[in-house]
């Protein structure tokens, strides 16, 4: 906990001077009568690790989809590094520096882990269009990919087809793929989903180490409260699509509304 406290103090100073990296404003998504995301405002500063939590169906993944362009908002806007990215297609948003992982593991199962991260890194290479010079594009991408694998402690399975990795390693591989793209912001959708207790502990250790050393800005959807309190600087709590609390972990823990809706309830 001392770690998180020190990090919070550091980034508090940073945050005070910088404009938010991600600024979500009045973001709403309606599916007919169902309001999945309800007028959400959120600001994430550079270097911050923000957890988005809430009961099932609270709209967390939809919020991610809205930010990354997978889903178009009904109302509201998303600004990234000062630019309005609302309504841009998913691939264009990714090209601007937001990389994400998915709630249900999404990889290239027949490619090896090395090939997976290479393909991820290749996407950010401006020379990937050229008909010649493919070898150097591959080399650069493989370097970036291999570094990402190392960062996530996956060197030992680098040559194995991704479909054959353990579930825990697959979740980490997805994070490695996102990191291989050298993103400005990392969006992790339930990285410990489906992991056993041991796997979760290992994953959290790895994630904690790498988040700290890389100083990347991260948005994290998580169900597991221990994981959240271990990793996050700030927490945003969603309930039925709307923000009901927003602040440092201690404050959110103490919030009565949150306790009633989420922490105190069955989860």
């Amino acid at each position, binding site marked *: 906990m001392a770690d998180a406290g020190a990090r919070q103090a550091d980034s508090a100073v940073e945050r005070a001077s910088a404009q938010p990296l991600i600024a979500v404003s009045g973001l709403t998504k309606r599916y007919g009568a169902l309001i999945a995301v309800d007028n959400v405002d959120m600001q994430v500063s550079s270097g911050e690790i923000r957890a988005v939590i809430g009961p099932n169906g609270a709209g967390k993944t939809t919020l991610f989809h809205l930010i990354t362009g997978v889903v178009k908002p009904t109302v509201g806007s998303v600004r990234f590094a000062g630019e309005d990215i609302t309504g841009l297609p998913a*691939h264009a948003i990714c090209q601007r520096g937001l990389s994400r992982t998915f709630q249900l593991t999404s990889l290239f*199962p027949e490619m090896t882990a090395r090939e997976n991260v290479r393909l*991820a890194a290749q996407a950010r290479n401006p020379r990937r269009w050229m008909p010649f010079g*493919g070898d150097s594009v591959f080399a650069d991408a493989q370097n970036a990919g291999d570094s990402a694998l190392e960062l996530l402690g996956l060197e030992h399975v680098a040559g194995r087809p991704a479909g054959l990795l353990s579930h825990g390693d697959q979740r980490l591989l997805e994070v490695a793929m996102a990191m291989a793209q050298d993103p400005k912001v990392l969006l992790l959708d339930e990285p410990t989903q489906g992991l056993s207790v041991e796997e979760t502990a290992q994953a959290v250790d790895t994630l904690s180490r790498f988040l700290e050393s890389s100083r990347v800005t991260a948005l994290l959807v998580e169900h597991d409260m221990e994981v959240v309190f271990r990793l996050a600087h700030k927490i945003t709590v969603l309930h039925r699509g709307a923000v009901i609390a927003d602040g440092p972990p201690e404050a959110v823990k103490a919030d009565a509304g949150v306790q009633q809706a989420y922490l105190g309830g069955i989860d």
Partner: protein
Amino acid sequence: MRWSTVLGLAVLALLIAAPLGLPAFAMTLLTELVILGLFAMSLDLMVGYTRLISFGHVAAYGLGAYASGFMLLNSSMPLPFVVILAALMTGIVAIGVGWVCTLATGVSFSMLTLAFAQLLYAIAFKWTSVTGGSDGLAGIPRRAGPMGITLLTTKTGFYYFALACLVGSFLLCRKLVASPFGAVLRGIRENEAKTLALGYNTRLYKIAVVAIAYAFGGLAGALYAPFAGFANTELLFWLLSGQVLIMVIVGGSGTLIGPILGAAFFLLLEHQLSSYTEAWALFFGLVFIGFILFAPEGIWGLATGWFKRGDAAAKAKGSLHG
């Protein structure tokens, strides 16, 4: 894989030496195999490498054939030039086709490719002034090459030209699938959503591969017109789309070589069985279904798998100490 390079060079040597030893009817068959093999290989780019199932690839063949036939009949351009030009024209038209068809995915994509081929079929019937209607274009000459090189007017000369087109196309395609572009195609094949999420504009890649596949298919068609001497609506009939898809699957999709083998298998069956029974095409269809059910990797896939297991077994034996 070194054994495959050796094998490939050996086969190439045989193909180059073929006119010296084979009788005329066999050479005609071989030339047809080269053309059909090119046609099948072009479809593999879409089906095998990107998992874009096309039921309308005959559109590429027909476009190429009519384009080259028309140009050979109505102009004095040398044959190699006409053939390449026809292929390029097909590729350019295919950019539009790809743009439209990739508006949809999955089954809808396949249906759109079929619809386009049917559209072309209907146009070929109606636009008699250009296409000759149901009679088609006849008397297409095998014109001399540039600078009066008369080599191509002979059957052997033409065979070498077609072979050169096949080998050249094969090398280009192989380079393409091994390039970063090819890696993205593979990503689209395995998990398109993830490829998109990684920042690739997958639709553009799909349009590109359709255009390239149609260009090579058009090259095959463009070779067929002077080879057979005619171009007619049979070249746009949907059954041919089906047959070339069968060649790709039975031969082994995603390998470039497999489809060429599939074309060989198809032609062999056609010429061997058609003397016994008219039902060879039906038989071929049943073989197709059989392969999908029991051997989806195709003939080449089975062969390489067999070799790989042999390799692995040898390695395992040798590495007991490692």
